[in-house]
């Protein structure tokens, strides 16, 4: 009998738990540890953030699903990792701290044979003074943040209806942010809502981003195949902004946000300020705050995690200049080098380096996107890890499946307004996520699989994906037929 502990019930952790449970015999135990009672389809938080969906439409209770499937669920967060056990307990274990109302703060030990760390990002609002829903900006990173953002947006719209012009600022709240695609999607949805509310003429909409060019998306941009041309994503993205009258500020690091005012520095060292009435700025990400200890109780956190708290896996972390980055630097199995029974999936694994060219301001402030690990890659990595763990439990000597971001594509359907007939979405796919200049000289990506398109069809796809992934996450009949 083996016990697998999965930390996190987001896209990666939940996918891994479902696949393991389906794959393994009942004698093996699958335990999910996650602080939240609800599963959240995060991509639809964008629609919650403009008031087009409610939190209830993008979430569901995890406990009944896990009960039906025979997965154990602990409402808790992992705080310590003991991969060698301790003097009192010979088996490896995780210390978890309860987040359930009845036992909040209680610490217990979860012993494991295999551990999958899928703890996703920790939202680091503290990196920029004044950033975040507890200070001067809103966010759409969680469904509750998004519901709060929708209220703030509705209030701004109400003020515009009274004839007061408003400035709406959307983008990244720090030079080291990732997930620019989410900010891109939010600004278009917000702009669509302003038009729908009949107040667009009262609004100045500004997109502020740490990308050196819009359309970089943290993947060094891409060239999309479009009507017989190979078009840089910058052209495609700038066109969408211009058409909607959205201004942009690129290569920007937000230094501080005061009530109604954001101060920033751009890559050329220039300092700027934007006054706003509404600001949705994404935070930079860190990994979950988990400390690791050896058998003797010595702190070995730095052996398992990078300083940004993401978990070290089978990647090449040796520092190299941009020109020497290779597709082969990226991990394939997501197994930790020191402990073969520990894996990381989704955002929790530490990328070897960014994908976009690193840039900094003259004073050394780094202003360039961190690499995105979006939903599809997070799910695919989780599948590879779950299959490897299941095979290892059944006797395989090591990981049996691999899923490198340099051999994996990503599909991004960025909604630009939610309406069945008038809504549109930019549908983009790229293959691979990490450019491979040896395999695809010149562009680094396969032109056959890297394309972009905007239209109502994209909006329908985005809507269908919403229902399809909620169906799959609820593990309803035939869920496993739906790919990640």
């Amino acid at each position, binding site marked *: 009998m083996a016990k697998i502990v999965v930390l996190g019930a987001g896209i990666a952790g939940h996918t891994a738990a479902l696949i393991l449970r389906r794959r393994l015999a009942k004698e093996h135990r699958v335990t999910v540890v996650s602080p939240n009672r609800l599963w959240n389809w995060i991509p639809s938080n964008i629609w919650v953030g403009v008031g087009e969906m409610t939190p209830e439409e993008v979430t569901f209770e995890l406990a009944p699903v896990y009960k039906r499937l025979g997965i154990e669920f602990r409402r808790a967060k992992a705080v310590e990792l003991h991969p060698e056990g301790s003097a009192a307990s010979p088996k490896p274990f995780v210390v978890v701290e309860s987040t359930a109302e009845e036992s909040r703060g209680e610490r217990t030990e979860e012993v494991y044979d295999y551990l999958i760390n899928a703890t996703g990002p920790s939202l680091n609002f503290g990196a920029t003074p004044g950033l975040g829903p507890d200070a001067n900006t809103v966010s759409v990173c969680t469904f509750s943040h998004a519901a709060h953002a929708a209220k703030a947006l509705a209030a701004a719209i109400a003020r515009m209806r009274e004839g007061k012009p408003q400035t709406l600022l959307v983008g990244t709240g720090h030079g080291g942010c990732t997930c620019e695609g989410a900010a891109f999607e939010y600004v278009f949805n917000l702009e669509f809502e302003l038009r729908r509310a009949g107040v667009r003429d009262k609004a100045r909409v500004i997109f502020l981003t740490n990308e050196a060019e819009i359309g970089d998306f943290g993947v060094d941009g891409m060239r999309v195949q479009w009507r017989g041309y190979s078009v840089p994503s910058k052209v495609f993205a700038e*066109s969408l902004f211009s*058409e909607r009258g959205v201004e*942009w500020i690129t290569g920007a690091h937000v230094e501080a946000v005061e009530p109604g005012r954001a101060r920033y520095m751009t890559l050329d060292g220039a300092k700027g300020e934007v006054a706003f009435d509404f600001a949705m700025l994404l935070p930079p990400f860190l990994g979950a705050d988990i400390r690791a200890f050896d058998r003797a109780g010595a702190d070995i956190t730095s052996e398992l995690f990078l300083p940004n708290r993401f978990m070290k896996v089978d990647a090449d972390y040796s520092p190299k200049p941009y020109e020497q980055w290779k597709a082969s630097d990226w991990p394939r199995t997501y197994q930790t080098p020191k402990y073969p029974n520990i894996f990381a999936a989704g955002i929790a694994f530490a990328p070897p380096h960014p994908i976009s060219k690193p840039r900094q301001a003259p004073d050394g402030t780094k202003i360039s996107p961190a690499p995105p690990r979006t939903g599809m890659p997070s799910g695919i990595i989780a599948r590879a890890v779950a299959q490897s763990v299941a095979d290892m439990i059944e006797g395989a000597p090591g990981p*049996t499946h691999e899923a490198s971001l340099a051999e994996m594509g990503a599909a991004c359907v960025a909604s630009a307004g939610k309406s069945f007939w008038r809504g549109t979405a930019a549908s983009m796919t790229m293959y691979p996520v990490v450019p491979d200049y040896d395999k695809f000289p010149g562009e680094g990506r396969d032109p056959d699989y890297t394309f972009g398109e905007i239209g109502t069809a994209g909006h329908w796809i985005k809507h269908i994906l919403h229902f399809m992934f909620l169906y799959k996450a609820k593990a309803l009949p035939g869920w496993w037929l739906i790919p990640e």
Partner: protein
Amino acid sequence: MSSKTPTDHARGSMTPSPRALFARTFLPFQLWHFVWINWRMIRMIALSHPRRRAPSPR
């Protein structure tokens, strides 16, 4: 310069023609594109899913 004014934006960007704008929400065209985008995405997703490693793991 990293920061641009709205006028700079309009001058430097590609803008859609009335025909392109019409096509974005024109039902028959979008139905066809729905099939086309799905087909391309399915191919890319199939290509991206985990593969079994060579028999001797690292």
